[in-house]
């Protein structure tokens, strides 16, 4: 195939230009599946910020909101504070393991159907076909000289792409602020600069990645195709050209002339024509294959026309391919999908999900953090007592103001007061009001007789006035000067 002369071929360059890919339109099962997934994923993306969710008067009513300014993440009934970021980390871990699960079962299904790069590229290619025509027309237009017709078509296509890119960026920012307000602010010039900058950047990245970079992103920029090869094994389903059935290739005429010497592949090149990444699946599994399965649709259509059985290109595992080659029956699909590896991924995925749900259901919405002030570590009072001070953070994570009782465990002769009170009114407890969904910080003074251990452990407690079950405790200590002069 390759002549050694080519070693000295001056055409072999250090840098390779992108080969144009003009995928042909195709119909079939997988094309319909891709339509459906595109509709669902885009709908989720565009509609989610507009869903309302009533949380009462003290919190926003947007169902999904990443409120960076106030450091809150709202997702329907769940509100996450910055210190609960491990829930987000847990969701990311679940997303990762979910991806492992999907990949080990059905290969690069994420790449082929639901990756944003795939979805937007697919959308852009539909626009391209609507303006420029199908594959062959696009080839012709590319080679045509720049005249009014070509310029017009290019301007129209790029305008539509930019428009889609603009809406992509426009929808993104809605997740970070109240959507109806932000839309009005955006169009009246009132929105913050970062909103315009984000829309601008996302418009251009969508335009460039979806319109021009396309499969280059998957092949050169994305790490996931490399990781996936480690996730897949001989029991993972992937788009497979059944070379033992198709080879040697030959047209229908040749096959009729020489019965028995040709395989089912009629070398019509339709699988290459429809491929959105421009590869030839007949060369085997490769990094450029995102397993969108459009070549399956194309090949099935051709097989129907020439009256040969479907499935020359089909989802198959490497193991099934070996079995089929040897003329043995396939493993059952269920056995392929439910095998120890997928069950293990699924179990881990479910376990993390259940653990997070359990943790979210049981988390306390009141929290105390007491820190002893260290400079000075203690203060000698005029009457011989010693005073320590503590900085207390009281978190009220509910969407209503709450009264809380601060108390202290046993500290002999100890009394406490806050910066609102005074030593005259000091006691063992005090009540303070914490506004809805916020942290109240107060300075707590504790005074105790000067005689006693240099360091004495005790704890500061908090409990909601209306619900003693909502409580928390933090351990601190009390320090005194060394006795004697």
């Amino acid at each position, binding site marked *: *195939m390759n002549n050694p002369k080519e070693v000295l071929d001056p055409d072999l360059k250090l840098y*390779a230009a992108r080969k144009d890919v003009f995928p042909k339109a195709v119909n079939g099962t997988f094309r319909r599946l891709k339509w459906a997934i595109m509709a669902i994923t885009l709908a989720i993306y565009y509609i989610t910020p507009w869903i309302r969710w009533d949380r009462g008067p003290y919190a926003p009513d947007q169902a999904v909101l990443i409120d960076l300014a106030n450091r809150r993440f709202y997702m329907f009934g769940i509100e996450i504070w910055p210190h609960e970021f491990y829930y987000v980390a847990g969701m990311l871990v679940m997303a990762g393991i979910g991806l492992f699960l999907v990949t080990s079962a059905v290969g690069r299904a994420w790449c082929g159907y639901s990756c944003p790069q795939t979805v937007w590229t697919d959308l852009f290619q539909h626009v391209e076909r609507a303006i420029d025509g199908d594959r062959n027309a696009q080839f012709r237009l590319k080679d045509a000289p720049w005249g009014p017709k070509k310029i017009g078509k290019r301007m129209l296509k790029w305008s539509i792409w930019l428009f889609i890119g603009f809406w992509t960026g426009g929808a993104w920012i809605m997740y970070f602020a109240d959507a109806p307000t932000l839309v009005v602010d955006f169009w009246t010039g009132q929105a913050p600069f970062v909103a315009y900058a984000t829309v601008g950047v996302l418009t251009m990245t969508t335009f460039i990645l979806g319109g021009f970079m396309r499969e280059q992103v998957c092949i050169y920029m994305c790490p996931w195709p490399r990781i996936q090869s480690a996730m897949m094994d001989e029991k993972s389903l992937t788009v497979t050209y059944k070379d033992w059935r198709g080879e040697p290739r030959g047209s229908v005429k040749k096959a009729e002339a020489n019965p028995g010497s040709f395989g089912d592949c009629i070398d019509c090149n339709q699988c290459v024509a429809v491929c959105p990444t421009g590869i030839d699946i007949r060369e085997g599994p490769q990094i450029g294959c995102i397993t969108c399965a459009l070549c399956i649709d194309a090949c099935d259509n051709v097989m129907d026309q020439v009256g040969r059985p479907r499935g020359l290109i089909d989802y198959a595992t490497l193991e099934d391919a070996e079995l089929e080659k040897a003329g043995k029956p396939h493993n059952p699909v269920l056995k392929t999908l439910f095998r120890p590896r997928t069950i293990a991924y699924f179990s881990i995925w479910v376990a993390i999900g259940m653990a997070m749900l359990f943790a979210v259901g049981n988390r306390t919405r009141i929290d105390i953090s007491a820190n002893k002030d260290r400079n000075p570590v203690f203060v000698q009072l*005029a009457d011989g007592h010693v005073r320590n001070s503590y900085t207390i953070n009281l978190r009220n994570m509910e969407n209503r103001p709450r009264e809380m009782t601060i108390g202290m465990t046993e500290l002999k002769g100890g009394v406490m007061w806050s910066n609102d009170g005074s*030593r005259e009114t000091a006691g063992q407890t005090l009540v303070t009001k914490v506004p809805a969904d916020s942290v109240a910080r107060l300075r707590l003074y504790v005074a105790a007789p000067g005689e006693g251990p240099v360091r004495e452990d005790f704890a500061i407690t908090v409990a909601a006035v209306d619900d003693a079950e909502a409580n928390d405790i933090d351990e601190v200590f009390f320090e005194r000067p060394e006795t004697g002069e």
Partner: protein
Amino acid sequence: MMTNKKRIDEPTGTETVGHEWDGIEELDTPMPRWWLWTLYATIVWAIGYVILYPAWPMVHSATEGVLGWTSRGQLEQQMAARQMELEPIRQALVSTDMRTLEGNPELMQQAIEGGRSAFKVHCVQCHGFGAAGSKGYPNLNDDDWLWGGDLETIEYTLTHGIRNPDHDQTRFSQMPSFGRDGILQSNEIQDLVSYVRLLSGREKNSAASTRGAALFEANCAVCHGADGTGDRTQGAPNLTDAISLYGLDRTSLTDTITNARFGVMPRWGQRLDPATIRMLAAYVHSLGGGEKIPVAETAAEAKAESGDNEQS
């Protein structure tokens, strides 16, 4: 064994780099051309950056860049912007009567926070980072005050300082050097030390302390009071409580009575603006020992005492 033969790899159709290590070869896959264009774009960007911003290091400083941007200039802008933001608070603070400040929690809190940062610049050198002081430098956290611990009094002390010889309104008092000036003999001083320690419960009643009581009555009571509780109008410390500025052990007390003390604090009225002084007063007041402004004192008197700032 390393050979140097470039060849075309059959499965990929790609040239190898020509090296082989134990049968392992490396493909010389061409880089995508857009990657090269990206590199060129970054070079163009860098050229623009070098022209616009400081870049080349020279002997004394870097090239300036046509935009004239400097990090110092940026800091100055940000500081000026911040000052503009704070100006309304400073105005409000200066125009608020100190008596009503505590009734305005928001402004009080802003004043405390402003004072917290000003304290770190101007006060920590003597009073310490946590305002805990040290020997000779008062602890501002406790509930014992030499000159008084309400907002107005603290503000006055800050504005006019303590024992500034060139300033009429400064807080001033001078304890005699009883030993050095020969007013008391050293055995009398030891008796006095015993009595002073008895006042704060550090020693038991003794013959020495009884002798010291008479000496106290004659020499000390005029400022420290007959019962030793001190006098804030002249900064005479309360000798009966647990707190002392210079120590109540025998050595320190002997030193204090023999040579006297003369603690000085600068008058900040000549260095800081009235708003900053008020912020500092609010911060010091907030540290745990702050007192209420006495109600007996009339507003007019308070104004006369603390209102006139040295700068004005």
